[in-house]
């Protein structure tokens, strides 16, 4: 409406240039995925001249790739589920009660988000081997909780704190039990918050590789690790690598498409 809230020509140009900068590597990945390895190494072309779906066929039919994809999705879903399950009651408590050590506890939770994954390489290997979880999706899911749980508590607490306490009291006056209030009234009010939290848990668990690689050997190997191990086998099959890369983009696109409406609103309302 107003000329001042409308982006200037320079700003628009920046945006277009930036979008192009984002798209070009993706475009290149896609063209690589659609060419055979001989074709890629044989001659350089700016756009693909011959198409082949061989690479994608390999990724989807070879059980190593397929299992990798399933493993990845398994620990991501496990992690997201665990994170939400433990973070929701904690965030509710932080947003509603003052108790001994609450601030310190909250701060301590956040410091876990600041721990570099590389620090945990060695102890994680030992710990999960000791409890017999090594090389299972659950091990990766639990390890990722180190980053996703503090973040989930942080985001949810921000949203829940903005829901007036009077709602709790009114529900109690109306004679609702705590369970009914919490699941029928309170949680639906925080739908957007849970959506945003899901997004962030998914995002950080899906993109992480270092811990996922350390905690798996063969049975639970995630797709991202399958990629790194194929490179060193016998030269690099660029076409196949690119096709696998394209496949790993798909879950991200699907998730962001579903939460796109909540994303901006959720960011604006909550802490993050």
């Amino acid at each position: 409406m107003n000329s001042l809230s409308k982006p200037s020509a320079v700003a628009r140009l920046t945006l277009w240039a930036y979008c192009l900068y984002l798209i070009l590597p993706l475009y290149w990945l896609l063209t690589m995925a659609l060419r055979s390895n001989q074709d890629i190494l044989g001659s350089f072309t700016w756009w693909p001249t011959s198409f082949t779906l061989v690479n994608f066929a390999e990724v989807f039919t070879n059980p190593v790739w397929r299992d990798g994809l399933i493993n990845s999705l398994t620990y991501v879903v496990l992690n997201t589920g665990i994170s939400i399950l433990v973070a929701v009651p904690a965030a509710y408590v932080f947003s509603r009660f003052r108790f001994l050590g609450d601030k310190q506890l909250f701060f301590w939770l956040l410091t876990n988000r600041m721990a570099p994954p590389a620090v945990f390489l060695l102890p994680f290997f030992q710990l999960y081997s000791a409890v017999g979880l090594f090389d299972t999706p659950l091990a990766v899911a639990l390890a990722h909780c180190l980053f996703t749980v503090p973040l989930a508590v942080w985001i949810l607490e921000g949203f829940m704190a903005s829901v007036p306490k009077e709602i709790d009291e009114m529900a109690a006056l109306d004679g609702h039990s705590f369970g009914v209030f919490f699941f029928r009234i309170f949680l639906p009010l925080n739908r957007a918050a849970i959506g945003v939290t899901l997004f962030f848990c998914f995002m950080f668990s899906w993109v992480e590789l270092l811990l996922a690689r350390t905690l798996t050997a063969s049975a639970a190997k995630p797709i991202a690790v399958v990629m790194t191990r194929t490179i060193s086998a016998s030269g690099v099959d660029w076409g196949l690598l690119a096709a696998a890369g394209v496949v790993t983009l798909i879950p991200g696109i699907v998730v962001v498409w579903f939460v796109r409406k909540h994303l901006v609103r959720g960011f604006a309302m909550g802490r993050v």
Partner: protein
Amino acid sequence: MQANQNRAWLGVLPVVLIVAFSGVIPLMTVVNFSVQDVLDVNTRFFVGFDWYREILRDQRLLDALGRQLLFSATVLAIEIPLGIAVARAMPREPKGRGWGAAALLVLLALPLLVPWNVVGTIWQVYARPDIGLLGHGINALGIHYNFSQVSSHAWITLILMDVWHWPSLIALLAFSGLTSIPNQHYQAAELDGASRWQVFRFVEMPRLRSVLIIGVLLRLMDSLMIYTEPFVLTGGGPGTSTTLLSQYLATMAVGQFDVGPAAAFSVLYFLLILLLCWLFYTAVVKRDLEQDFARQGERAAHE
């Protein structure tokens, strides 16, 4: 009140347990390693702060630290302003949020959802001089470019990759901050004759402060932890020219199996990130609080 406290602790217990399991126990193990010399499973010596002294004299570690700080400072200096600029250029009105705007949002969020090793792969495929669009393109212009042989080229590629990967986070945060500014503020600024710059400085920035603090904190800690993307793209090379802290730590811990020094390094590394985040936070937030107090005091004095 006592009952409340008990119930409160019950609510946070699962979180405490899970973070203790995945965070505290491993961290204690690391601390334990850092003060011991482990010869085999049954033979350990308490060595005090010897490992700490040793790694602080490790020139390769200090070099990696220098590179790490330079890298984090560079990418933050580029990504924060770029993210804000992108957010300001996005269509904000509801009617502008049609199909195109949704696609734009998805495109922006996409780099954030690419597995980190795939980010490395994408840029490797894109920047290689033989098969990459970027690498081949630059060489076709007559400029010699090879990121796997020339250190400065490796650095530039690393920065370009991070600038591809992360400004979206800042942009999305800033955009959500901008959409929460009521239109009246722009209208008032228009009638006041404010310039675009003044609108940015006096209307938008104050409203973006809290989201930007979060954005900068996240970027600060994540850039300090970066491992996978440079590992895939350059492997830390050529030589050690792009070896950052995490990678040096991984080499030490897994490659050479120097458990003691690696553990001591880990502890210091964690403390460094905590310290930098704390410094940033107090520098920004505390200064504001002090200003608020000063103003309140001034007001009280007037009354």
